[in-house]
């Protein structure tokens, strides 16, 4: 099983941000990490977001450089050297390494540990609900336990009769075809009214109930029969997730792992809520469900942002602002039928595919190799301080720093670095923001 091992050691001086007010806009991975960092650096932090970010719909793992065959950070370093416009190159490798540390620390602190492979800094090899293999660097511990780098066979893949979001035979068949022996098992769930519409998060909550999960465990026990590991859909508990996994491992006498299913992701929900509670304990303000409508600008600085309320807008003031509103998916960038792309809060210039209109945004097939121009070429251009740039390459505003999917220069769907970029740029944005203030 993967043990927790950090990439490196970075320390955050708790005085770096003292006396400073930071507003973070966005509650995706980058906004959350930015808020955690700023709090740890001693700043007063307010996080404002219309809703949780992509971690809620993502499988839960942390892709840094999926295609790396061996040392991931070394591969990123080489790539960044060749691609100076890539957010990794702009943010710098230190930011990535420190951000990964910080993520592991905070995840541990809130009781939602993320794990990587022991020793070597190589990618994991994790099975998907289609039985394909994905290669992120880190994953929530329960998911990371499915690492197939050194396969102990056979696997037992367990699904639930009448639950729409997991098909064990599909997983086992495709894994076996790739030389990883796996067999499917379907067990039934205790009946409950309304269960025809159970989302992964609903089912995860039902696993918090010990009578419910014992009923499942009892059916699996006699079927383990020499399986080296047992895989379940990633719904093993919400509030009591760690307990459920321990109980299942003890009850089955072998390691238990989780396979992410369709959105929404219980792992993403746990991480989000855990960080939210942590921020509140640190006396940060967290406003989820509030839309930032616009930024007020004076003399090249943002003085405050206006937040939508019933029938009016409330202004909030700060020294620095971290804009982490996501890309086209979460509303950080808007698009329309005429092919316009814009950033709605500050009106920062958005770069996009070169052609007029929408004609070249997408290739002919959704899964076309290389992905689509609209997701690979759209975003804000920033400098190494993460400040959005105007057409001449100069920062638009002194005290606004951007991070995450909002940035140009990478494709979050196909480049295998979505979470790594979100984390590294958030880290760099906060460092730059606090340094600029100091």
């Amino acid at each position, binding site marked *: 099983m993967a043990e927790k091992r950090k990439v490196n050691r970075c320390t955050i001086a708790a005085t770096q941000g003292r006396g400073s007010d930071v507003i973070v806009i966005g509650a995706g991975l980058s906004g959350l990490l930015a808020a955690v960092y700023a709090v740890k650096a001693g700043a007063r932090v307010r996080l404002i977001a219309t809703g949780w970010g992509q971690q809620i719909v993502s499988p839960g793992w942390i892709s840094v450089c999926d295609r790396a065959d061996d040392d991931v950070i070394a591969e990123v370093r080489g790539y960044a050297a060749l691609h100076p416009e890539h957010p990794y190159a702009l943010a710098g490798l230190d930011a990535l390494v420190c951000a990964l540390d910080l993520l592991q620390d905070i995840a541990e602190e809130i009781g939602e540990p993320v794990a990587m492979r022991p020793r070597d800094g190589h990618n994991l090899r994790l099975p998907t609900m289609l039985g394909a293999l994905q290669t992120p660097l880190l994953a929530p511990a329960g998911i990371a336990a499915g690492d197939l780098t050194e396969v102990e066979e056979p696997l037992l893949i367990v699904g639930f009769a*009448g639950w729409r979001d997991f098909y064990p*035979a599909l997983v086992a068949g495709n894994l076996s075809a790739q030389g990883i022996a796996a067999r499917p098992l379907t067990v039934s769930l205790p009946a409950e009214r309304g269960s025809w519409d159970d989302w992964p998060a609903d089912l995860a909550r039902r696993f918090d109930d010990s009578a419910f999960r014992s009923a499942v465990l009892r059916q699996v026990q006699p079927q383990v029969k020499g399986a080296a590991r047992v895989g379940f859909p990633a719904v093993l508990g919400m509030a009591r997730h760690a307990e459920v996994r321990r109980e299942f491992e003890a009850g089955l006498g072998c390691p238990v792992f989780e396979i992410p299913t369709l959105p929404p992701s219980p792992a993403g929900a746990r991480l989000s809520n855990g960080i939210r509670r942590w921020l509140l304990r640190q006396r940060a303000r967290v406003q989820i469900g509030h839309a930032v409508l616009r930024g007020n600008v004076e003399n090249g600085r943002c003085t405050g942002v206006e937040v939508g309320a019933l029938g009016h807008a409330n202004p909030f003031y700060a020294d620095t602002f971290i804009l982490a509103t996501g890309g086209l998916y979460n509303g950080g960038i808007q698009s329309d039928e005429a092919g316009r792309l814009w950033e709605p809060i500050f009106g920062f210039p958005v770069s996009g595919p070169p052609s007029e209109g929408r004609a070249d945004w997408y290739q002919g097939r959704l899964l076309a190799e290389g992905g689509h121009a609209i997701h690979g070429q759209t975003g804000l251009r920033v400098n190494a301080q993460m400040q959005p740039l105007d057409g001449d390459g100069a920062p638009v505003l002194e005290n606004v720093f951007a991070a995450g999917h909002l940035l140009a220069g990478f494709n979050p769907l196909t480049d295998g670095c979505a979470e790594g970029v979100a984390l590294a740029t958030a880290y760099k944005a906060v460092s730059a923001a606090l340094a600029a203030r100091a």
Partner: protein
Amino acid sequence: MTTTSVDVLIIGGGATGAAALYDLARRGVRALLVDQLDFTTGTSGRYHGLLHSGGRYAGRDLETARECIVENRVLRRIVPFAVEDTGGLFVATPADPADFPARWLDGCAKAGIPAEPLSAAQARAAEPALTHDITAVYRVPDGSVDSFDMIHGFVAAARDLGGDAWIYQQVTALLREGDAVVGATLRDTRSGEARTVHAACVLNATGPWAGAVAQLAGLNVSVKFDRGAMIAMNTRWVNTIVNRLRPAADGDILVPVGTVCVLGTTSVHTSAPDDYRVEAWEVSKILAEADVVVPGIRNGRALRAWAGVRPLYEPPQAGHDEAQGREVARTFSVLDHAVLDGVRGLVTVTGGKLTTCRLMAEKAADAVCAQLGISAPCSTADEALPIPAATAGRYHRLDHRLHKLEHGEMPGDLICECEMITRPQLEAAIAAYGGQPVALDDLRRDLRLGMGPCQAGFCGVRAAGILQAVRGQASAEATAALGAFVDERFRGVRPLLWGHQLRQLYLDELIYRRTLGLDRLPDEGVSQATTAAPGEEAAHG
């Protein structure tokens, strides 16, 4: 090569061919219908969904207008399970020619179309989404018709009477003996297998392909191709069909169909019967025009766009005047090649409307029977068809299904949330194929699987898992079925990717690429499926 003999071979499983199969079966003629793909994959599955009152043609084409109002009443009588009696409105706005309503009303009177004047307030009371700028508005007996249900109804009724229908059978040659057509060679478009059918007469009901099929017998039938685009919006913005009261132009009509509202259409001269492009200007034009009568609709969520090709038949004598698109009459033509070309055993029917398919079938069957010396008259206009088992209850509104789900009347878990399809429904639909190949796209046509806002992002993999379980397939086969469905669904959303639907497809792509790793499996099956011959996707794997 296997050989089959029938009295009549009907080529084309659209509305016209299916109605002809039923018509001949009622006259006691043994007929076989074949289509190169599935039923409704031609124009009949790419149309606007409107059971015309004829009002659309009252301004300029009285013959079609008259045919429409008569057949509108007939179809309501004989295929009630496929028709929703929405009624229709013709709405004039200040942007439309002020003298048109009077002319139009005169045309309606001449064609026998009841047009009831309403006040603007009455119209808005019925359809609150309508614009406040109404200069004239009339109510007509338009309806919406589900071609999938209607065609399945015709085929099922014909089968009960001894007719038969084969799908995925393409006619690749017509057999000639001297000056007579005596049958055809078929190729199975999934397996490639060839076979021969001998027939005393062949009915060419291939819509826009009518010229190409006639060419197989060395005959010249000149069909012009007129492409039109449509857009499905995610909810029923209106519950009544809304037409612009002006000379027919682009983007005139809004049709509530099932769970959605279909906007259209355009009229673009093209050179191929299967040119299904939807261009960016068509999307803009359709949305802008619809927004005039239903303000705000252009900012709504567009789910899917598609195009169909109208076959516009040009009689030889009219060959020189260059009428195009909307100027060519929408009435239909039955060509008896014995009379026209001295070649017996072949009749072609083309043009027309889905609304007039039964009448087209009647006239075509009359010509076929005349050639065969059969005197039995047509009897399709009066008696209601039995509700086909496969489609019974398929016509639905989402709120009805939700009610059933919440009250335990539809057991099983919900597989397609957008269209509210449960696992038992999906399993039954798969079982209905017996040992035949079944693609997820077939199940879409049966159940509306994947036709809602997420366009299969969630239900696609679920359906693949269930298909594998029911059929005992290998995972690779189920994965390839999913890959083919992803490609098929993407074709129709690609023209609509901005704003909300772009976000939706981002999520879908995230699910396919990251959560599932569909593009990482060794044999993804997707690229093969799209480059294969039409309809081969299900056989792949």
